């Protein structure tokens, strides 16, 4: 009975992925430049929100320092590519790895903190680095930012226009999303989720809590740094204003909107938040007001985001299908499958 339920669900998921991929691959040809910019930014923010999926959805660690690592990735990339003259793929890779290394070192200190303290620690980190980005000339050229970053030149193919970028971003996003879902299904992912749900029990079962959290933090930073690197190459210009605490809050909003524990949800959330300024253009001055109200309503009615809403809707549908097929045995089966109700 259970397998019968799983089959159509996985088939549906697979079908959705394939359709989505086809749409995204055909899209660059159809859209104009302006729409492509939105799609590209949405995908880049999606990659950054994947870091939330790993850290918050699986690990239960709410980190407010995602934009900090994005900024580090972006600024390192810019410096390495522009001022040190490294070939661009190498610059990007080194920048991401360097940021991940810094994140690992920071995580040694940060993951010892529980709950609230961790959040405050990352808030402190975010604010501190925000000031550093604004003022520390050797890294970020102060408030002016760095411009004239060379275009990404991968195996001789230079990504100049937006539709090339869109293809590359889609491919990268898919690869990273598959990576995240592999992690989720691996032993690391399961240990992480057990830490999220009950750290004490996890420890008694032999999970090395601190080490797993450190790895999760580093993976999250790796994803944010990748997003930052893409920002640097895509826009050609990076400045400190892209990486402030306010941007962090809107990133959080994207993640919460789409659903924290779902990759699809993060994608939907990123697209929605990027599209909102366009859709709401007639009432543009009330944009942030609408976003705020939406966020409040969202948290009251759909705390797991849109993905959570769809998941619970799917569960209800499948339950009612099962009821119709089951008959007398349904009650007992339902009790066996969902002991908690």
């Amino acid at each position, binding site marked *: 009975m259970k397998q019968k339920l799983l089959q159509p669900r996985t088939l549906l998921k697979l079908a959705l992925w394939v359709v989505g991929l086809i749409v995204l691959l055909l899209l660059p040809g159809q859209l104009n430049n302006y729409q492509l910019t939105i799609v590209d930014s949405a995908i880049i923010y999606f990659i950054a929100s994947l870091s939330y999926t790993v850290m*918050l959805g699986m690990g239960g660690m*709410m980190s407010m320092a995602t934009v900090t690592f994005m900024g580090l990735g972006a600024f390192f990339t810019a410096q390495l590519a522009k001022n040190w003259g490294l070939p661009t793929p190498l610059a990007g890779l080194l920048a991401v790895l360097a940021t991940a290394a810094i994140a690992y070192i920071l995580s040694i*200190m*940060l993951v*010892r*903190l*529980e*709950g*609230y*303290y961790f*959040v*405050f*620690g990352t*808030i*402190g*980190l975010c*604010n*501190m680095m*925000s*000031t*550093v980005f*604004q*003022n520390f000339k050797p890294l970020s050229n102060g408030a002016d930012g760095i411009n004239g970053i060379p275009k990404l030149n991968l195996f001789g193919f230079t990504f100049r226009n937006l539709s090339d970028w869109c293809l590359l971003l889609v491919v990268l996003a898919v690869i990273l999303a598959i990576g995240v879902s592999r992690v989720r299904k691996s032993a690391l992912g399961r240990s992480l989720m057990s830490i999220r749900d009950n750290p004490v029990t996890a420890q008694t079962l032999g999970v090395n809590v601190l080490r797993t959290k450190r790895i999760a933090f580093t993976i999250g930073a790796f994803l944010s740094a990748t997003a930052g690197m893409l920002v640097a190459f895509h826009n050609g210009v990076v400045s400190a204003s892209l990486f402030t*605490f306010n941007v962090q*809050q809107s990133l*959080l*909003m994207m993640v*919460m909107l789409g659903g*924290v524990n779902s990759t699809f949800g993060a994608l939907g959330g990123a697209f929605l938040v990027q599209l909102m300024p366009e859709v709401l253009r007639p009432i543009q*001055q*009330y944009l*942030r*007001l609408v*976003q*705020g*109200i*939406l*966020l*409040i309503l*969202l*948290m*009251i009615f759909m*705390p*797991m985001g849109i993905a959570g809403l769809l998941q619970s809707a799917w569960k209800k549908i499948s339950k009612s299908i099962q009821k119709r097929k089951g008959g007398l045995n349904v009650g007992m089966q339902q009790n066996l499958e969902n002991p908690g109700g």
Partner: protein
Amino acid sequence: MGMFLSLTGSGLAMGMIYAMLSVGLLLLIRAVGVTNYAQGDLLALGAYTAFFLMDRLDLSGLPMILLMILLFACFGAIFMFTCYYPLRKTKWKQSIMVCTIGAGMVIQEICMIVCGSMVKPMDPIIPGTLTIGTFVLQYQYIVVFLLSILVMVGVYLLFDKVYAGRAMQAAAQNSYAANLIGIPAILTTLGTYIIVMMISGFAGYLVAPIFLVRTTLNTLQSKAFASMVLGGFGSVPGAVLGGLLIGLIEAYSTYFTTVYKDVFVFGVLLLTLLIRPQGIFGEIQLKEKA
């Protein structure tokens, strides 16, 4: 020497503002278990309310203070009913926190819509500067310091001596037991929210002449977080002490550098978390109750 004293003076005054913010934060965490990310926006709301009353409605003196207190009470109630009441039984702990982020955005926008989005100045309560030799300090800083001490003493008296205050503490510590005794948890939560709003709003009113009335007052909130951690998570005197320390650290660091003072402050925060996460007066760790 004079400069040291004037830095101390302004540091203490700002420290009291941070202390008020972090006490408000702490009260909310103790009472309802939710980190309120809109604390800075409540401060801004207080500043805008004062501006609105003084500028648009041309009130001043006692009627303004009374009306301001009344408005703060209303705002506190509205805040609770949107951000806490529908969510109090949720299983997903972070949703209340994110809800407060949304509320913060809404508050910012409404302030800008009602009062216009330009930065506005506000007259200090006592204009002018006190100058003794090299010691230079605006009177407003002294006013801020004295008035906030009064407010803090008032809050302390409320929670320790008056029955209503102790009832609120009881409901905060164990709402089930409090309900059994007959203390209505909803009313005490409402009371806590109103008091927090009044503290933050009043702090906003005090700080507006110094920092000008604008929505970015909410950056003071991060420093309030830092003071709460520094002083000890969970104790009111700790929050006050932490606030004063952060204010002083910030003021002294301006002697060395103007732009990196945030780095100093948050560096201290990170150091505290590294060495002694409970802070100075730290008590046992509080879990989120939501």
